[in-house]
């Protein structure tokens, strides 16, 4: 699999550029200390005072499938911290809200990536160079804001007389599938796949990676977030404690600098997985904890 991704030389070049960029501080985001609790809300008034940077996005053309013409060109990013938690507010223009997935449609999403150690390759880390990835998904937000997107929500006119081993009445809401014989058919849910869980608590999935194809959901989920779509744009807050007592805690802390990178997906353009727009590393300049 590795061999097909791209010639080794190109891989090495991108690797080197990624590391170099992190050191060269191509762009920096001031992350002020705030004394309050930070609400997980893109509409919080405190965001008005937070500095912002425009983060340009590039095509993802390292791992297959490539996305040479990404839909989202740039993100507006802000961040604040209160000594314990760091929160990002990420905004971007998107003409369509894509929060529901049918068999042929995809959802909007945004993610940020931080090295667990001092630095990591921009290509989702590398062997032994782990990154932490916090991934907000519009469909998870929809599950939380409205209700889990079951058949009755996805296809209001659909009718199913019966499902084996399921008691009750149509439309046989998925939460009523308590019989173990019935639950066998809900593979992803039973196996703990976060995508398949009807009772989502946050729209952010916390994950680690050591290179492409290695993305793994962490056992401990410490990140939270919320996205709001308004006036042709998404505004998403992603927040996490600096230290969650997790071996995957990044080396970020107040008063220091830390690299962060972003990726974004436009579901309307059928972007998902590797079909994404990615940023280079930018530097977070975390303010010291004040009084």
């Amino acid at each position: 699999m590795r061999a097909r991704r791209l010639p080794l030389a190109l891989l090495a070049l991108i690797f080197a550029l990624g590391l170099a960029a992190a050191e060269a501080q191509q762009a920096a985001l001031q992350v002020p200390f705030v004394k309050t609790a930070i609400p997980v809300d893109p509409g919080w008034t405190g965001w008005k005072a937070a500095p912002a940077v425009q983060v340009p996005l590039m095509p993802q053309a390292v791992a297959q499938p490539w996305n040479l013409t990404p839909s989202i060109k740039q993100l507006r990013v802000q961040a604040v911290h209160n000594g314990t938690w760091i929160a990002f507010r990420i905004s971007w223009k998107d003409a369509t809200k894509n929060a529901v997935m049918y068999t042929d449609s995809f959802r909007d999403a945004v993610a940020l990536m931080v090295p667990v150690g001092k630095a990591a390759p921009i290509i989702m880390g590398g062997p032994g160079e782990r990154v932490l990835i916090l991934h907000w998904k519009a469909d998870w937000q929809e599950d939380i804001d409205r209700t889990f997107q079951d058949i009755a929500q996805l296809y209001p006119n659909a009718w199913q007389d019966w499902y084996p081993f399921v008691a009750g009445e149509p439309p046989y809401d998925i939460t009523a599938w308590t019989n173990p014989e019935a639950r066998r058919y809900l593979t992803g849910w039973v196996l703990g796949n976060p995508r398949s869980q009807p009772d989502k608590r946050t729209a952010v999935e916390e994950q680690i990676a050591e290179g492409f194809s290695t993305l793994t959901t962490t056992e401990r989920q410490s990140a939270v977030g919320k996205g709001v779509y308004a006036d042709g744009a998404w505004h998403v807050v992603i927040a996490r404690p600096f230290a969650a007592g997790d071996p995957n805690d990044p080396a970020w802390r107040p008063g220091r600098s830390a690299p962060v990178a972003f990726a974004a997906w436009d579901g309307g353009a059928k972007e998902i997985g590797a079909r994404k727009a990615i940023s280079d590393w930018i530097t977070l300049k975390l303010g010291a904890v004040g009084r």
Partner: protein
Amino acid sequence: MGTVKNWQIGREMEYPFPESRPRRQFAAVFDLNKCIGCQTCTMACKTTWTVGKGQEYMLWNNVETKPYGGYPMGWDVTRLERLGPQTWEGDRYTGKTLFEAAPAGEPMVKHLPEELDWAHPNAGEDEAAGTLDRGAYFTMPVHGMWSFYLPRICMHCTYPACVAACPRQAIYKRPEDGIVLVDQSRCRGYRECVQACPYGKVLYNPVLRISQKCIGCFPAVEQGTQPRCVTTCIGKIRLMGFLSPPDQARADRPMDFLVHARKVALPLYPQFGLEGNIYYIPPVNVPRGFLRQMFGPGTDGAIETYLRGKDDPELLGLLHLFGDAKEILESFRTFPTTGEAAGYDGKGREIVRVPVKEPDYLRPFYDAARQVYRHNIT
């Protein structure tokens, strides 16, 4: 990109992973001359595996009417159109496979079926290829007006497009039997596999938000039992077994005999380059051009062999073992003196024995005891 040997196209080809054949390869032969499109296989599969949430539209096994049917709609013609005209030279495919025709940044030619493409599993059912001219009647052996049923499951390919396409490597081919599975805990619903599989046999579950596919009834296969779609086939058109690569073929093994020895069972769209492992005995009454595009250059030979089957006791014997046993037949034998065929398990124990030809009974037209005339005297 690596280079692998694909015997179905008579040459090496590009594939993202190195060649790694399983210890045994799940395979099946479907005799299209015998399929009546009753969908018993479809219902057997449906009621066994796809009665969960988000699986309402799913048919891991389906039967479509060719030339117009397709589930998802146009699964075959979309790929043929993307590939464009391609060439064979004898048994060697000189055109491009779906992997070799890949656009930059993609492992193969892909196509994402639209939502509505899944909504009409019966589209084209029982529709013939053309209209009947006034006064036309069947002209054998090839009908001027024709159609046939094409039963389909996952091909459990030697070079699966779904495995090649998954950016997460969440799809794997089991070394013990070659069955291809989607890891339901690792899948993230990107649907690269749905777009990659030219046979349209990976399907997205919109409730669980992950992709699912035919699992080759692996819990049955692990117990030495043939899959549900095979054992429930009332037309006895199917036989499942294990297929060897051509250089290791043994003529007493049912799959090897049909695919490699007699070459009467052919791959479906071998030019796609996946080396699928469901093989078809082509229908004898369909124009050869259509069949050659579908089953490759072996079509004419397969039909001739099939039509000569009455003079081929081994072939006739094995065809009679289709649908006669629940267990997987590891080997078979025919007994010309008794006119029987028998199938055996892996330890050589006889599982099933059938007469190849039923004894003839001739009864008088008039039954004096009952004082009735018989409608059927044989």
